[in-house]
Every structure is written in structure tokens, then in C-alpha cells.
């Protein structure tokens, strides 16, 4: 979780250099969900995500250097520089892809579980989605099929209250999404996304349910995007949300909360934390150096034949 935070803070620091020439949707503030969920998964379990995917990719074990190189548009990136921040993939880590069309990867993740069902494989397919995605028809379509055939899918809904700048109450009536999920026949839970351990436990329970073959599950976690929808800055000054609201959520910082808990329980000491921070610092520096030194894809890579597999 701290690693995700530090990677993205580095993006914030270096974005003004204008060498990362693609949109970035930062997960700062939302790391608790990614970390807690992925901690409860096996390596074989798969993860897919949407536009705000850095945290999910890293939490599942996606290669850091390849992600940063991708954001820098270099040929060493995880998509050879064809994807950018919004298209991450690391098949070795079973992170199967993220795309920015709202809800676009939901049915694909259901398809992964469908194929597993046909092949009699047991892994769980996890799909991260925002609360806005539950407004898309494709979510309901995908859930219907997943429940019908008891596919091994975990739908993780991160409710950060806003779709770009549009608040929840402009988009949805005042009723819980978990109620809709329940009506669809899903196993349902709801938790505090700022409490990584709670996220972990609730995910474990859901995954146990899914692995037992009882059907897919839906968990909604409350969370908050600290920075602007797209880009490295803060945007509270725009007026679509209040500074007070932002500060209240910032106080619940998932990284600080876990750190405090770990110190209190004695599982970490201040000294270990300092040492972990410095290790991550080095890893992050290396990744950015690697990306910046990597070449851009050559002109020859712009050939229509690369649109097709042979």
C-alpha cells in the first residue's frame, strides 16, 4: 500500500516535466481497497480493472518498471508503449488488463471465469469497478450471466462518490447498490475501504464463498479519490466538492491507519518502516530511471499488420 502511494507520489512529482505524455488517473487515497483485496487472492486468481488501475496492477504484483515505462510511452512498457496509463497488463502476475471505457472490462472478467468454468479450473476472476459502473447496462448483463452459471467472479466496487465531477446524488437514487446486487442473487458485503485489514477480511470471506462454488460475490468499499479525476493535482477549488469533505476523508488515510495499527500491535517498528520506505524509494527511483532511459517504439512499429495476430 505504501509502495503504491510512493509510486504515485513520484508520478505527481515528475508529471510537470511533461515526459509522461498520457492521462493519469491516480489512486492516491484509494490504496486500501487494492491492497486489501489482492492480499486475499492467490497468484492464480486473475484481476482486471478500469481507467484508475495503477493500484490494482501493483497490488496484484504487476511489474513496476514496465508500468512506468508504459506511462512514459516507451517500448519497454507493458504494452510496448501502445497503451499508456489506462491500459495496463501483466500476464505473469495474472493482471489480465485494464481499459478506460466504463464497465468495459466487467464482461471480459466474467468471460475469464466462464472459460475457467468450461475448463474446470478453480481460480477466481476479480474485477475492480467504480460505483458509476453500476449505472451501466453491461454491469447488469454481466452479473446476470455470472450468477446464472455460478461463475467464480468477485465484483469489487470502489465507491469514491464521484464520476469525474458528477456526485452520486446526480446519478443514482438514494438506495444502496448492495441491494441491487442482492436482488441479482450475488453474495453481498459492504466495508470501509480505508481500513485495509477490513477489506482483506471481507474479501477472504467472499473468496471462500466463491471458491466453494456457491456463486459470484459483490463487495462495495467506501473510499475517496484525493487528487483530481485525471492528472496529478488537487481540484477541490473547482467547487464540485468541498475542502471540508476532502479533509475529513484525508484524515482516514488508509496508509497512515495501517501504519499506526502495525506499530501499535508491534508487527512493525518505526525503524522497519524507515527501512521499508528507503527500499521502496530506491525501487521507485530505479523504475523511473529505467523508463526515462528506455527508447520510444520505432517508426516501423506503426504498421497496420500489428492490428492482427498471425
Amino acid at each position, binding site marked *: 500500500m505504501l509502495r503504491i502511494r510512493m509510486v504515485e507520489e513520484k508520478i505527481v512529482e515528475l508529471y510537470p516535466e511533461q515526459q509522461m505524455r498520457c492521462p493519469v488517473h491516480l489512486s492516491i487515497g484509494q490504496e486500501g481497497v487494492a491492497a486489501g483485496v489482492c492480499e486475499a487472492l492467490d497468484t492464480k486468481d486473475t484481476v482486471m480493472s478500469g481507467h484508475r488501475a495503477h493500484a490494482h496492477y501493483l497490488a496484484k504484483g504487476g511489474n513496476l518498471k514496465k508500468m512506468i515505462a508504459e506511462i512514459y510511452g516507451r517500448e519497454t512498457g507493458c504494452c510496448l508503449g501502445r497503451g499508456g496509463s489506462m491500459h495496463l497488463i501483466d500476464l505473469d502476475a495474472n493482471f489480465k488488463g485494464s481499459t478506460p471505457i466504463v464497465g468495459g472490462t466487467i464482461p471480459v472478467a466474467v468471460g475469464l471465469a466462464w472459460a475457467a468454468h468450461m475448463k474446470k479450473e478453480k481460480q477466481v476472476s476479480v474485477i475492480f469497478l467504480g460505483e458509476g459502473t453500476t449505472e451501466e447496462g453491461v454491469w447488469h448483463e454481466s452479473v446476470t*450471466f455470472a450468477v446464472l452459471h455460478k461463475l467464480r467472479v468477485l465484483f469489487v466496487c470502489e465507491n469514491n462518490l464521484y464520476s469525474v465531477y458528477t456526485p452520486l446524488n446526480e446519478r443514482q437514487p438514494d438506495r444502496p447498490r448492495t441491494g441491487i446486487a442482492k436482488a441479482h442473487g450475488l453474495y453481498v458485503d459492504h466495508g470501509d475501504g480505508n481500513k485495509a485489514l477490513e477489506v482483506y477480511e471481507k474479501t477472504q470471506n467472499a473468496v471462500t464463498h466463491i471458491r466453494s462454488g456457491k456463486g459470484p460475490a459483490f463487495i462495495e468499499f467506501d473510499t475517496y479519490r484525493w487528487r483530481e479525476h485525471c492528472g496529478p493535482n488537487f481540484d477541490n477549488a473547482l467547487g464540485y466538492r468541498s475542502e471540508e469533505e476532502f479533509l475529513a476523508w484525508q484524515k482516514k488515510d488508509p496508509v497512515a491507519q495501517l501504519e499506526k495499527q502495525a506499530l501499535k500491535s508491534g508487527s512493525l517498528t518505526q525503524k522497519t518502516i524507515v527501512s521499508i520506505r528507503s527500499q521502496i524509494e530506491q525501487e521507485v527511483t530505479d523504475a523511473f530511471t529505467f523508463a526515462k532511459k528506455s527508447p520510444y517504439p520505432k517508426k516501423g512499429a506503426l504498421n497496420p499488420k500489428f492490428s492482427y495476430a498471425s
Partner: protein
Amino acid sequence: MPRKRIINGAQAIREALDQSLAKDPRVFVVGEGVPDPKGVFGTSIGLREKYGKNRVWDMPVAENGMTGACIGAAISGMRPVLVHQRLDFALLSLDQIINNAAKWFYMFGGQQSVPLVIRMVIGHGWGQGAQHSQNLQALFAHIPGLKVVMPSQPQDAKGLLIAAIADPNPVIYLEHRWIHSAQGNVSKKYFTTEIGKAAITKRGSDVTIVSSSYMALEALRAAQLLAKINVDAEVVDLRTISPLDTPAITRSVKKTGHLLVVDSGWTNGGIAGEIIARVVEKHMDVLKKPPARIALPDMPAPSSPGLTKFYYPNIEMIMRKACNIIGKDPVVVAKVLAEDTSLSATPHDVPNSSYMGPF
């Protein structure tokens, strides 16, 4: 030459599915009504009984979601065949087709391809109307990453479907409703028709008629009738819309010096215009006359037989246009058509047995 075995297009498609399911355990078929008693115009009858529920699936009425699920299955190593009883319903899944299926291979750095076949049936005649009859080959051909095939004769309907299933890319298989009843000699064995290769269904030296799908059957019949008035037309059946077999078209036009394109889609932004552009751009010098096209008027399909009679291109239009291009007085066309009673024996809004094979 092995003995002839005449079956129709629907049977050929069913046979392609049957043999692909038998040959490759990764193949499965899914679509609304696929396992039902009518089996999508007979093209999937008995397949569930033969291969079981895990290979032959029905589905929720959820076109976009199920297309995405097929993409997920495809990148997991399966070979889905998704079936839509009408192309028009598949329009609900354009997000998954265009944003995901077509781009997955490229945008993720060529790591995973999407071996997915989407069969879309195109309605025609009998009052199908505006939303049961759209020929959207140009729309799909516009999207890089998709292949688009559109067979006319049963042998190609089978060979192209098997080839599409074996292809590592997403293939849109456009299946005109009226090619289901076309008869033809179809090889019994498992075989593929190469995607991207046109066929010359009639040799000729006066005018090249390029066409596809059901219109290729009308073009062929028109060419046979043109022969009676000493017009020797060559018919190029595209079979694949994307990638277009430009070399085959060019070779024929170089021989005849005249080009007529007959398309089942709309005129504006259509495949006919694309073909003419390709020829004119590079081979203007071989054209003896300006090329011409016959396509649908740029308006939705009506339902009334009183209107469809004029809406859809027909043999007479093809013959007249061909005569016009080569400078022959089309007045003789009417005479030939009047002599051929087989044409007028069938109403215009059902398939005409006089040009439905056997091929």
C-alpha cells in the same frame, strides 16, 4: 472429381460448426436460441444434443455483456462462436466489438489475440423492415483489428466459417438470410476457404462485376443472362470484405477495362465506393469508362412489398448498368428478361430459385 453432394447454405453452416466442435475442444457456440428447436434457421439444430451444454450455450438477452464474456473466454484460450439471429441486435454490442475485441491484440502489445467469431444474420424481404435487414459490412470493415467475411455460395459459407473459427483474430461473419437457401456442391470434409481471397464465379472479358454475399448470386445470374445478349461479364465474388482482395479486383479490371460494383449495403460510405476508389487511385489508365456502383438508396429499408420492390437492387438493374458501362443499348435487357419466365415466377420478396443454385 468426387461425386456431387448438394446441400444448402444453412446446412453448410451447421456442418462447419459441427466439424469445428468435433475437431477442436476449445470451440463453443453461444447465442440466443442456438439450442432451441429451430436452431437459428437450422444452422445449429442438434448441436447441443451432440456436444452437450458445456459446448453449446443459450444466453441472457444481453448482447454487449455476452460479447465481452466471449472476449474473456477467447483470451483464456477458448474459441467462441457468438450468434445473432439478426445483425441489428448485435449493434447493442458495438462497444465490446469495437473497443475491446478489435483492439485487444494491438493495444496490449500483441500479447493476447481474440479468436472470436460473431455470426450476424442479415434479414431480407418479407417485410423485415428497417431494423431486421441492415447490411453493415462497411461499418465493420472500417474498424482495424476486425476481419469481415460475407459468403454467397454454400461451399464458401462452410469454408469461411471454419477458417474464421480457426483464425486467431475476431472475425465478423455476415450471413445474409437468403444465402441459407442457396444450394451447392459442398465438400464433406473439414476444409477452410482462405480469408482475404475473392473468387471468380464467372469468367468474362467485357465488364467486371464485383459483388458479395447474396448480391453475388444476383450478379452471377445477371451475368448469365447478359451472355444471351453477347455481353461477357466477369463476376468477382469478394467472399471477404476486410481485408479486401484488391489484387483480384485489379486483375479482372485490367482484363475487362470496365468496373461495376454491386453491394448489398448503403451507397454513402459503402464498400462499393471503397472498391472504386482503390481501382481509380492506382489503375485509372486501364479503365475505358467511368466505373459504376449499385447499392442501396441512402434510407432505411421499408417493410411494404410495394416499396421493397424498388428499394433492393435486382438483376435488371445490374444488367442495365453493365450495358450502360460498356456502351450497349440496354433496351435488349427487357427482352431477355421477358423471355426468362423463371425470374417472374417468384415474388421479389422471397429468394428466387432460379439463381439459388445448385452452384
